[in-house]
């Protein structure tokens, strides 16, 4: 009787143990699954966040700010915060870019004012000569005079349009360009500045350069800024070398801007791309090179400097060549997908 009773109890106990163990197993497996799911989800979201932060650190704000998301959880909120931050940074960068461009424009103005002086003087001379020689000029000569006046006014328009193009605030627009063409357009803006400052130009542009896919006004802004710095570094005049050559295997194009000026002291060199760092006192904004740095980085390129006090300075700007296979160098990786 007692034996039977104990057997029963034992059976109940062992059944309970088994049930318990099975339940425990089921719970464990279920938890592992849930955990695995959440772990996977969190890792995935963190990867998105990491990608966004990486884009921000590279200055590619517009790629972060493109897709608005409606947050569902804390991680989404964090991602949205990063995206909002990129949006704000992008807006500020546009303002900074414009203010720096205007500062550069101030330097260009004196050169351009002088550049306008020549065609104005020509028109004035032609009008005076026309009046003073009116009675002895033949009809054809009179026509030639007036045709020359038109040529000179065209020259003035061209100078003014160049300046307007430079100063206008435009949305960055990426297009395919010949690097030599960009160099020529940027040099046109400083040609008179160079003449006034007694700076000779040495231009070396390799034939059949690979094309680049860039926002031309921005790259021109970078080059003009380098020229202005180079001219300022040569107060007694000197030589400005502007060279463009393909990098090995035509994957990149390298712009070189080299002066024979005062050079940059060793202790200053590490700071030249820092915002608001200037050696020009109140004449400089300290933004030129930092803005240039931002522009080149956004174009997935690189800007570097070599200099020694008294030995002149060389800036190198490397930009990726345009790979014409339907794939653009700035092909946007969608960070939210």
């Amino acid at each position: 009787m007692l034996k039977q009773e104990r057997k029963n109890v034992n059976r109940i106990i062992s059944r309970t143990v088994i049930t318990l163990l099975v339940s425990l197993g089921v719970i464990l497996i279920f938890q592992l699954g849930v955990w695995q799911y959440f772990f996977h989800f969190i890792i995935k979201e963190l990867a998105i966040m990491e990608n966004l932060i990486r884009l921000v650190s590279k200055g590619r704000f517009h790629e972060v700010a493109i897709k608005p998301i409606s947050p569902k959880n804390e991680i989404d909120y964090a991602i949205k915060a990063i995206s909002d931050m990129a949006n704000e940074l992008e807006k500020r960068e546009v303002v900074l870019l414009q203010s720096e461009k205007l500062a550069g424009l101030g330097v260009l103005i004196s050169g351009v004012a002088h550049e306008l002086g020549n065609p104005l003087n020509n028109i004035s001379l032609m009008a005076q000569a026309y009046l003073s020689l009116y009675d002895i000029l033949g009809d054809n000569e009179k026509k030639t005079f007036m045709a020359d006046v038109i040529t000179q006014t065209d020259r003035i328009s061209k100078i003014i349009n160049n300046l307007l193009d430079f100063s206008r605030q435009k949305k960055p627009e990426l297009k395919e360009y010949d690097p030599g063409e960009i160099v020529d357009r940027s040099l046109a803006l400083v040609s008179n500045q160079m003449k006034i400052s007694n700076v000779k130009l040495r231009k070396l542009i390799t034939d059949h350069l690979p094309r680049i896919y860039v926002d031309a006004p921005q790259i021109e802004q970078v080059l003009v800024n380098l020229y202005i710095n180079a001219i300022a570094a040569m107060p007694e005049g000197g030589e400005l070398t502007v060279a463009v050559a393909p990098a090995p295997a035509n994957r990149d194009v390298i712009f070189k801007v080299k002066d024979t000026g005062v050079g940059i002291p060793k202790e200053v060199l590490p700071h030249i791309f820092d915002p608001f760092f200037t050696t020009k006192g109140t004449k400089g904004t300290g933004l030129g090179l930092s803005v240039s740095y931002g522009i080149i980085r956004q174009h997935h390129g690189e800007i570097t400097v070599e200099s020694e006090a008294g030995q002149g300075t060389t800036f190198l700007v490397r930009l990726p060549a345009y790979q014409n296979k339907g794939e653009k160098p700035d092909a946007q990786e969608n960070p939210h997908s």
Partner: protein
Amino acid sequence: MPKKILIVDDEKIVCDMAKRVLEHEGYEVETFTDSSLALERIKEGPFDLVITDLKMENVSGMDILREVNNRYADTKVIMLTAYATLDAAIDAIREKIFDFFPKPVKIDDLKKSVKKALEE
């Protein structure tokens, strides 16, 4: 013998217009838009008057002025410039110059100055 004038300016129109007007006044005029060629020409023989721009590629107006003063005591120099700074004027006066005109040049004033230079 008509008086001989040399005009040096990298703007062709300045050369052409000054030549037209001054030839009409009865002078013999030679022009150069390339200042280094003008410098070579000056070495070959004297002019009564040289009219030169200040800022030019390669050889500047100051180089022309020095070359003329070194070679020919009697040749007068009139300088034209679009960049009329006080420093430039002082430099030119130190090198002995007859007259100095900022651009845009008034042709009547230039004619008067040329006449005066060649009368002296």
